[in-house]
C-alpha cells in the first residue's frame, strides 16, 4: 500500500493515431481528480454510516446493561439511573459465574483436543496417500450434508448411557464437540497443501520418520493455522445453544452461557431479566472479542485461505 502511494499520479493513455502509449500528466486530469475526491467522500460517508449501524446494537447493549431503574424492555435508550446492579446480580445471586466457568472449561478442553485431531487429520490427508483416503473425504462430504440436529436424539441417548447428561453435561458436551472434529479438516488441509512437499521428502531422506517430519518440520511452519484452529475451536462452544440445552436439559448448573442467557430472555419473565441478559452478554462478549481482535491477523488468514482452497 505504502509503495503505491509513492508512485506519482500519472495516467496512461493509448494514442491510437500515433500508435504509442502516453503518460498524461496530472495537470490534465484535474477534472478527474475532482471526480475522485467526490467518490472518496461518498465512500467515507457510506463507511461511517455502516460503522454506526454495525456498532449501534452493541452500544445499546452496553448502555442497557447499566440501567438500574427497571429490568425490562423500555422505550428509551439512556438509563435514567446508572449503576452496576445488573453486574452485581450476575456475580452474587445468579448461576452466571457457574455458566461462565462451564463454558470456559468446555472451550479450553475443546480447543486443545479438537486442534490435535483436526491437525492430525488434515496433515494426513494433505501429505500421505493411502487406501481409503478418497473414501474418507467423500464420506465426510456426504455426512456433512445431513443436518447436525438429526443426530441429537441418538447422541443424547448415547451420552445418557455414559452418564454424561444433565449433571454430567459438561464432559458430555465436550465429547460431542470433539468427536467429529475430524470432519473439519478442510481449512488446515488447504494450508498444509501450500507447504512444499519437497520439505517432507527432504526431511525423510535426511533420516526423519514421518512422525518427526510432522513434529519438527510441519508444525513449526503451521503456526498461523494452529492458532486459527485453536481460536475457532475455543470460540464455537460459546455460541452453542442447541446441543447444550438438550444435553443439560433442566439442570441449571450444567448450562453454558448461551443456554442460561437464552432462558433469561425467552422463557423466564424476560421483562425483569432483560437488562441482566445485557450485562451477561457484555461479560461474555468482552473476552471473546478481545481474543479475536488480538489474533485478528491469524483469523483473517484462516478465513480467506479456507475459502480459496476449498
Amino acid at each position, binding site marked *: 500500500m505504502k509503495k*503505491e502511494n509513492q508512485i506519482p499520479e500519472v495516467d*496512461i493513455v*493509448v494514442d491510437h493515431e500515433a500508435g504509442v502509449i502516453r503518460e498524461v500528466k496530472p495537470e490534465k486530469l484535474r477534472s478527474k481528480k475532482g471526480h475522485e475526491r467526490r467518490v*472518496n467522500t461518498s*465512500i467515507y460517508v457510506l463507511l461511517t454510516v455502516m*460503522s454506526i449501524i*454495525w*456498532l449501534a*446494537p*452493541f452500544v*445499546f*447493549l452496553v448502555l442497557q446493561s447499566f440501567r438500574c431503574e427497571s429490568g425490562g*424492555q*423500555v*422505550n428509551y435508550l439512556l438509563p435514567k439511573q446508572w449503576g452496576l446492579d445488573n453486574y452485581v446480580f450476575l456475580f452474587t445471586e445468579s448461576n452466571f459465574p457457574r455458566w461462565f466457568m462451564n463454558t470456559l472449561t468446555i472451550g479450553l478442553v475443546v480447543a486443545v483436543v479438537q486442534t490435535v*485431531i483436526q491437525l492430525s*487429520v488434515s*496433515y*494426513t490427508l494433505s501429505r500421505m496417500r493411502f487406501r481409503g483416503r478418497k473414501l474418507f473425504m467423500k464420506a465426510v462430504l*456426504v*455426512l456433512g*450434508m*445431513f*443436518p*447436525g*440436529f*438429526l*443426530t441429537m436424539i*441418538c*447422541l443424547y441417548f*448415547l451420552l445418557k448411557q455414559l452418564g454424561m447428561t444433565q449433571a454430567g453435561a459438561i464432559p458430555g458436551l465436550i465429547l*460431542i464437540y470433539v*468427536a*467429529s*472434529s*475430524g470432519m473439519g479438516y478442510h481449512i488446515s488441509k*488447504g494450508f498444509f497443501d501450500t507447504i512444499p512437499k519437497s520439505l517432507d521428502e527432504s526431511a525423510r531422506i535426511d533420516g526423519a*520418520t*514421518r*512422525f518427526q517430519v510432522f513434529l519438527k518440520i510441519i508444525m513449526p511452519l503451521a503456526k498461523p493455522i494452529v492458532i486459527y484452529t485453536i481460536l475457532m475451536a475455543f470460540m464455537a462452544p460459546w*455460541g452453542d*445453544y*442447541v446441543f447444550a440445552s*438438550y444435553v443439560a436439559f433442566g439442570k441449571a448448573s450444567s448450562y453454558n452461557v*448461551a443456554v442460561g*442467557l*437464552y432462558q433469561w430472555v425467552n422463557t423466564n419473565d424476560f421483562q425483569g431479566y*432483560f437488562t441482566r*441478559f445485557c450485562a451477561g452478554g457484555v461479560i*461474555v*462478549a468482552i473476552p471473546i*472479542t478481545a481474543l*479475536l*481482535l488480538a489474533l485478528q491477523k491469524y483469523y*483473517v488468514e484462516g*478465513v*480467506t485461505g479456507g*475459502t*480459496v482452497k*476449498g
Partner: protein
Amino acid sequence: MTDLEYFKLSKPAKMWHNLLTSLRNLPKSVLGKIKSFFMFFVHLFVGFFNEIKDIVLTYKNGDWKTRVSFTVMGFGSCARGQWLRGLLFFAFQTVFNLYIIFFGGAYLAKFNTLGTVATTRKGRVTVYGDNSFLILLYGILTIFFVLAFIYTWRMNVKQNKLAEEVLKAGKKLKYAKDDISGLLDSQFHKTLMALPTLGIFVFTVLPIIFMILVAFTNYDANHQSPTNLFTWVGLQNFRDLFSTANANYANSFGQVLLWTLIWAFFATFLNYFLGMLVAIMINKKGIKLKKMWRTILVMTIAIPQFVSLLYVSKMFAADGLVNSYLMRWGWIERPLPFWTDPAWAQITVIIINIWIGIPYLMLIATGILMNIPADLYESARIDGANAVQTYGKITLPYMLFVTGPYLLTSFIGNINNFNVIFLLTQGKPDVLGNKAGATDLLITWLYSLTVEDTNYKMAACIGIIVFVVCAAISLVVYNFMPSVKNEEDFQ
C-alpha cells in the same frame, strides 16, 4: 464447427451454439453416468467373486498354520512369530464372539420387528417389554460389528497368504517391533486417523444411520419407548409428508421448502455481492484508515451470535427500541409487525442476516482482491478499460472463479443456517400448521418437531429431505463448475 468459426460468432449465437452442443451431448453423458453406475456393480460383483476365489485358493494352497487361522484368527501369525498381529486378531475374534453371544445377538434377532412384547402394568408394577429404541440402535451397532468382523477375518486370511509368500521368497517378515515403529513412520496415517475416524463413526455415522432408519418407523409421541413399541412402517411417513390429507403436511412442507430455498438464495448472494462491495470500498486506493474500518466489522463477528441476535431480535420486537423510537418520533402510530407478520418477518430476517454476513464476506473478498495479480489491472488500464469495465471483466470473473466452491458451501450452509432463524424468530409466526412457521427453515422445523412435538419420524424424514436437497444442488454445481471439481487444482 472449428474453433476459429466459433470465435467469429456473436455472443447470442455462441450461447445458442453452446446450448445445442450440451443438449446434443446430454444423452451421451446420461448414458455414460448410467453405464458407470452399472459398471460399479459389475466391478463390485467381480471384486466379490475374486475375493471368494482368493480365500478358497488360500485355504487349498496354504499350510496347516494358515488353515487353522480360518477358524482361530491370528493363529498363523502367532505361529510365524508375528505375535502382536496374531494376538490382536485373536482378541478381536474373542470380543466379537462374546459380544454376539451375550449382547448383540438378541438385539439383532428382534431387528426386523423392533420388538413385540409391549410394556404392561400389573397393578402398581410396570413390567418392561421390548425397547424398540434400543433394538434399533444396538441392531445397527451389531450389523456394523458383523461387517467389521468379516473384514477383519478377510485381513487375517490375507495376512497368512502374504506371510507364506514372503517366507517362500526368503525374505523377512514384519515382527512386532517393525509394526510398532511403522506406526510412527510408514503407517503413520493409521496412528493419526484411528481416533478421529472412530469418533466420526460413533458420533456421526451411527446416529445418522439410526435417524435415517427412524424415518421408516412410526416413532413419535404415541410410540415412545420404553412405554410403547414402535415398528417399521415402510414409506408411510414420506407419503404423509407429501399428502394433503389429514394433517396436510404437504402444504407446510412445500411452503417451508420454498422459503428455505428463497432464504438460502438471498442469504448467500446478497451477502456475497454486498460484502464484495464493502471490501472494494475499503480497499480502494486513497481511502484512509483501512485497518479501522476492517476492525470495526471484524468486532461484530467476534461477539457470540446468541448475544447479538437475541438482542437484535428484542430490538425489533413490538415493544422494542426500534418501534418505540419510531412511535416517539411520530413516524408511525402502531408498532411495525417485524416478527408477527409473515412477510415482514421474512424480509427482516434477510436484512438482519446481511448485518451478520457482510463482515465475514468482506474479509473473504479482501483476501481475494489482494491476490488478483496487479499486472492484470495494469494491462487492462493500458488496454483502455475504465473502472467499471475493469470490475466487470477482471475483478468479478476472478472472484467468481476463486470463490465458486465457497459459494456452494455457503449456499448449503444457509439451507442449514439454524442459528440466525432460531435466535431471531424461532420460525415464528406459526402460520403453516404442523409446528411450521413462516420463517421456519427445514432445519428449524426439524428442531421444533423434535423438541416440542417429539415427532421423531417426521423430523427424520425432513432430515433426509434436507440431505437430498443439499446433495442435488452440490451434484448439479459440481458438474457445471470447473473450479470445484479437482482437488489437486488448488494444490
